[in-house]
C-alpha cells in the first residue's frame, strides 16, 4: 500500500476542495464570473444524483438506470409541499426526500429481487411507468410544462426572513445539504453496513453463506440511494423554482450513470468530479457546438474502454505511482466493475 503519504495528499485535497467551495460565491463574482456560481450550485445538486447511482453500483454492485424516478419524486415532493402547504426550504426538502424514500422502498422491494441486466431493465421500466403517469396527470404535475413557485424561506425566525432569492442563502443551503449527504455516505460506507455492501458487491453467493441477508442489504442500499436522488431532486426544484415531469425520463438517469462512471464508481467523491467535468464541458462547449453530446457519448465509450474506474481511478493510479515510485506497482483499487461471482461469463470468452 502507498501508505500515509497518499492519505495525506487525499486529506489535503479534501480541505482544498472544501475551501474552494466555500469561497465560490465570494471569489467568482469578483472575477467577473458571477454566472458560474449557479453552475457550481447545479453541479453540487446533480452530483447527488450521480452519487446515488454510485452508491448502488459502486458499493453494492447494482446498476440502476432509473434513478430519475426518485429524483422526480424528490422534485415533486418539495414542489407540491411548497405550493400546497406553503412549506419553507427545509420542510420542502424533507417532504421531497421522504416521498423519494417511500417510492424507493416500494420499487426496491421488487427490483432487488433481480440482478445483473434484469435489474437495470426493471429500474428503467419503473421510472418509465411513473414518467408516463406524471406526463399525463397534468393537474397534479403540470406535465411537460411543470409547476413553478416562488423562492421559499430558508430562515424565518424572530421577524427575520431569508429566502432562496438571496444568492448567498441559496448557495450555502445547497452546499450544506450536499456536504451533509456526502458526509453521511462517507460514514455509511465505512460502517459494518458498508462492509456488508462490499461483500454483496464482491460475491453475493459467499455473502449469503457467511450469513448476510443479501436481499435486505440490497434493499437498504436501494432505499438510501433513492433518498439521495430525492434530495438531489428536491434541491433542483428549489434551485429552478419548478418541477417538471420531463426530468423523470430515463435519459436523466442515463446521464447520472455517465457522470458516475466518468468520475469513478466505488469512490465517494468520484461522482462529484464526473458531474463537474461534464457540466463544465456542457457550459463551455454547448454554446459553440450544438452537438456537444456527441463528444459526451464518445467520452463515455472511451472511459469504459480505457479507464473503467474513471477520473478517481486515474487519480489513484497517479497517486500510487507518485508515492511509491520504487515499490511494485500499486495494487489495483477495488474494481467494482469486474464481474463478480454472479456475473455471467462473456459469450465467446473474449
Amino acid at each position, binding site marked *: 500500500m502507498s501508505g500515509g503519504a497518499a492519505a495525506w495528499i487525499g486529506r489535503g485535497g479534501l480541505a482544498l476542495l472544501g475551501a474552494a467551495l466555500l469561497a465560490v460565491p465570494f471569489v467568482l463574482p469578483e472575477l467577473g464570473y458571477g454566472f458560474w456560481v449557479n453552475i457550481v450550485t447545479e453541479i453540487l445538486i446533480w452530483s447527488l444524483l450521480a452519487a446515488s447511482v454510485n452508491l448502488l453500483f459502486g458499493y453494492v454492485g447494482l446498476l440502476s438506470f432509473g434513478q430519475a424516478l426518485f429524483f422526480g419524486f424528490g422534485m415533486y415532493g418539495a414542489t407540491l409541499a411548497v405550493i400546497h402547504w406553503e412549506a419553507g426550504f427545509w420542510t420542502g426538502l424533507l417532504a421531497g426526500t421522504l416521498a423519494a424514500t417511500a417510492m424507493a422502498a416500494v420499487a426496491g422491494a421488487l427490483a432487488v429481487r433481480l440482478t445483473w441486466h434484469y435489474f437495470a431493465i426493471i429500474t428503467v421500466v419503473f421510472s418509465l411507468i411513473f414518467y408516463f*403517469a406524471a406526463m399525463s396527470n397534468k393537474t397534479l404535475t403540470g406535465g411537460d410544462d411543470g409547476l413553478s413557485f416562488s423562492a421559499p424561506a430558508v430562515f424565518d425566525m424572530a421577524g427575520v426572513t431569508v429566502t432562496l432569492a438571496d444568492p448567498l442563502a441559496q448557495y450555502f443551503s445547497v452546499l450544506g445539504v450536499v456536504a451533509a449527504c456526502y458526509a453521511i455516505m462517507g460514514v455509511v460506507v465505512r460502517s459494518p453496513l458498508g462492509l456488508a455492501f462490499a461483500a454483496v458487491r464482491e460475491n453475493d453467493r459467499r455473502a449469503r453463506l457467511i450469513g448476510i441477508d443479501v436481499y435486505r442489504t440490497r434493499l437498504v442500499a436501494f432505499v438510501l440511494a433513492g433518498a439521495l436522488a430525492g434530495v438531489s431532486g428536491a434541491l433542483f426544484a428549489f434551485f429552478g423554482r419548478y418541477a417538471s415531469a420531463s426530468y423523470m425520463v430515463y435519459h436523466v438517469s*442515463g446521464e447520472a450513470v455517465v457522470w458516475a462512471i466518468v468520475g469513478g464508481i466505488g469512490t465517494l467523491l468520484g461522482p462529484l468530479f464526473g458531474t463537474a467535468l461534464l457540466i463544465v464541458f456542457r457550459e463551455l462547449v454547448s454554446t459553440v457546438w450544438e*452537438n*456537444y453530446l456527441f463528444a459526451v457519448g464518445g467520452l463515455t*465509450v472511451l472511459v469504459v474502454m480505457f479507464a473503467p474506474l474513471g477520473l478517481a481511478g486515474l487519480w489513484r493510479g497517479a497517486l500510487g505511482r507518485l508515492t511509491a515510485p520504487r515499490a511494485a506497482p500499486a495494487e489495483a483499487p477495488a474494481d467494482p466493475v469486474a464481474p463478480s461471482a454472479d456475473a455471467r461469463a462473456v459469450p465467446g*470468452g*473474449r
Partner: protein
Amino acid sequence: MSDVVLALAINGLVWGLIIALIALGLSIIFGLLDIINVAHGDLFMVGTVGGLAVTVATGSFWLALVLVPVLGFVLGLVLERVVIRPTIRQAALTIVTTFGLSMMLQEAVRATYGAQPRRMAPPIEGTVPLFGIDYDVYRIAAALFAALALAGFFLFLQRTKLGTWIRAVRHDPETATALGIPVARICGITFALGTAMAALGGVIAAPITTVEFRTGVDILPFCFMAVVIGGLGNLQGTVAAAVLLAVMEGVVTSVSDPTVARIVSLAVMSGVLLFRPHGLFAGATR
C-alpha cells in the same frame, strides 16, 4: 366506433410486425452477446433517416429498401468491432457503452440531417377497403415486408450454416468454440444482423412515421417490452409479444389515453420480469 377500434387494431398489427423485426434484432444481440443495446432504437432511427435520404437521392424507395439494411449491416460490423468488442469485458457496463453510442448516433444524425422532423411520402399511394374501412395500401405492404423479413430470418437461422452456427453460439459458446466455430466472428455478424434488422424496420416504417433523430427514443421501450414479455432469448415469443402488445395498445388507445396503454404494457412487463423471467409464453421447463 367499432370501425375505429378495428382500424387501430390493424394499425397495431402493422406496427407490431415492424416492431417484431426490430425487437428480434435486439433479442439476438442480447441472447448472443449478453448486451443490453440501448442504442438499438437509434439504429432503427438511422434506418428511417437513411431510408428517406436514399429515397430522396435516388428517387427510388425500393432501392432504399435494399440498400439501407446492407449499409446497416456494415455499420453494425464496424460498431461491433470498434465499440462493442473492446468494451465487452466490462460486462456490467455494456449498457453504459451502448448509452454513449446512442448519444453519438442521435447527435451524428442531428448534425448532418438536422433536427427538423420530416414526413416521407409512401411509395404506394391509395387505399383499399378492409373490413369496411378504407385502409392505406402502403401500411398493408409494410406489414407484408416485415412479415417476409421475419420469415426470411427464421429460415436463415434454421436452414443455413451461418444460422446454425449462430444458434450454436447462443446455446453454448464454450462448446461452440470447442467445435471450431469462430465465435468472435459470429458475435460480430450477429450484431451486424441485428443492426440490419433495425435498419430494415426503419426503412419500412419511414413512410408511416415521422423521421427525426429522436424517433428511436420512443421505439426502444416498446422493443424491450416485446423482448422481455416474449421471454429473453425466446425469438418466437418476441414476435408474438410485439404483435400482441401493439394490437393491445392500439385497442386500448381507441377507448382511452395512449399513455394508459403504455403504462399497462410496462406494468405487464415488470410483472413478467419479476415473476416469469422466462417470458409469458415459456412453459414450465427451466
